[in-house]
């Protein structure tokens, strides 16, 4: 039993790191603009398909696709921002409808270009098993975990130390006050969207290397990312990471101790419990004070 639990814990942490990568983009745009980008899962998917294109056409490691994936997701992110920016009334609500529609368009564009086949990496290196004592993983999962940690640290540093990062936090905290301090919220929001595009590109490539992608995956990714972002609370990068790991481990433990058929249910129960007892999320209040 101990061996089962150890493997579950380990698998949950690895899966959670990818949840975190996907959720960071949503958390960032939600924090900066109070907008939930329902097309974020499709941006991740777009990046995953770029990894497939690079790997299948050139035989290179899928991670070599990150620049191409970023170029594409960055452009789409800017387009999404420019469309959202044109919304004059009820931006929070209308942007939901707009980004939902963009998600559908992106899914169908992916379907048209790449067909409905399932895709995943064929790299022997990334699929090789690696063991740490009694627990096992694919090298692709370990790579994704390390990259997730690095991206998280980089984003945290950017938000704390760069001018744009601090401006994002200022706009997130109080848009009008930020304007009085000479910050142009439009530029800052655009920067947040572009950074979310970078995060989506890394998340998509990581997803491709350790899992299976297909055109219908986008909405599921968005929902999972949204759950993680709400669990974490607005504005907390370490919070997103911890919430994602918590969700991943909870799901994996449910599979081991009960049944996989219950894993989504248990994840949602966790989500509801946190919302009920801690409406600001696990780390939300502390982050806002910071």
């Amino acid at each position, binding site marked *: 039993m101990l061996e089962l639990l150890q493997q*579950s814990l380990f698998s949950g942490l690895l899966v959670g790191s990818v949840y975190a990568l996907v959720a960071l983009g949503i958390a960032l745009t939600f924090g900066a603009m109070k907008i939930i980008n329902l097309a974020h899962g499709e941006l991740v998917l777009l990046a995953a398909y770029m990894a497939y294109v690079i790997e299948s056409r050139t035989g290179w490691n899928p991670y070599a696709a990150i620049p191409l994936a970023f170029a594409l997701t960055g452009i789409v992110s800017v387009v999404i921002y420019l469309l959202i920016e044109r919304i004059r009334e009820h931006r929070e609500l209308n942007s939901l409808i707009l980004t939902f529609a963009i998600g559908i368009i992106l899914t169908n564009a992916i379907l048209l270009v790449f067909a409905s086949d*399932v895709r*995943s990496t064929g790299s022997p290196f990334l*699929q090789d098993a690696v063991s740490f004592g009694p627990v096992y993983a694919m090298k692709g999962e370990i790579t994704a975990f390390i990259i997730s940690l690095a991206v998280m640290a980089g984003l945290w540093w950017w938000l704390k130390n760069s001018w744009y990062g601090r401006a994002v936090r200022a706009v997130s905290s109080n848009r009008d006050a930020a304007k009085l301090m000479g910050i142009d919220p439009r530029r800052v929001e655009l920067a947040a969207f572009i950074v979310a595009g970078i995060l989506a590109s890394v998340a998509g490539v990581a997803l491709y290397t350790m899992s299976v992608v297909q055109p219908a995956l986008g909405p599921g990714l968005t929902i999972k990312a949204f759950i993680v972002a709400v669990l974490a609370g607005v504005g907390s990068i370490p919070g997103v990471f911890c919430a994602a790991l918590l969700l991943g481990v909870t799901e*994996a433990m449910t*599979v081991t101790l009960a049944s996989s058929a219950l894993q989504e249910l248990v994840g949602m129960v966790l989500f509801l419990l946190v919302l009920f007892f801690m409406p600001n999320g696990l780390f939300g209040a502390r982050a806002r004070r910071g």
Partner: protein
Amino acid sequence: MIRRNCLATACLAATLAFAASARAEDITIGAHMPLTGSLARSGQAFNEGMQVALRVFNESQSKHRIKVTVIDDESQPAKAVTAVEKLSSDGAAAIIGGYGSNIVGPASDTSNRLGKVYITGGAVSDELVQRGNKNFFRINNNAGYQRGVEGLIEEVKPNGVSIIASTKEAPMLLAKGLEESLAKKGYKVTLHPFDPAITDFKPIINKVKLQDKSEIIFMSAYENDYVGIIRAAKVLKPPVKAIVGAWSLATPKMYSDFPDLMQNVIGTTFLPFPVEVKDEEGRKFAAVYKEMFGKEIEYASTLAFVETMVLSEALARSADAGTLKSGGLLAEMKTTNRPSPLGRITFNEVGDNPNFALSMGQHRDGKIPLVSPAEFATGKLAYPAVPW
């Protein structure tokens, strides 16, 4: 002058009458398929098989020309219902159904209410034939898949079977049927249901490795799940002797997409690969399919080809008898009795095809010989043999 005009008029009238009788009669059918959404891969294969069948049928005779209007149901039951209503109101003579029991169920109910014959090759739930829908017909069923897998298990007699099954309706139906049947025969069976949203199968495979210790893993799932399960098994290497799956696994496409995962994996199928079609109709289907889509025929497209041919022939018979507009199609469907690349097709009193049975094919270096049952085998079963 008058005589000459009369002669010319008579000639013209005769020519027009001949032309009218020689012109093919157009019959329009409707189809709803999941061309987008989570079932798009199967839906597109079904659409391809249907298009080939219509071309083969229309070229085989000149009396009737069958056209199809296809609506994308987006893998959603509500859209499928709307599609059937639209197709019916547009005058479709019959409906070719979609994919997935949860979609076909409400869509065929609607078709039944509207008095339209509905045929499917993409829904295996037993409930579909227990509703008393007199207009419902299908060419495949859960029992056919179960017979194929059970036959293989009886041949190799493993110490136990771990069934890893998606909680979607059709995979779970097959898994539960197999669990019950094998348990009755004295096999140790453990069922591991999984949520379709799962991304990591290692915790399940670890249970198979450390708790079940079964010699066979049976996967009742879909392509993306197969890849995840086999990949997790390659990492954890449970002491199994074979990995077996249900639909859409023993296909050349799976091998070409995932060659490192598919070697020695066994799945249900009805044709070996490279395709060895023994009947004339199958050869024609394979040739036209390759011409139209540039690839070999596959599992889902063959189901669609057969269902469309069956419906087209019944439509033609009904039109010939002049009963198409008075409900004669239903009677013609019931008299169906023909060979096909899937075996003989007949329909029992509830519209099911009792002859449906599948063989088991094993991935072997890019080829898929049939390895079970023995009477249809084109190659020897490699056992024990796993992808790693």
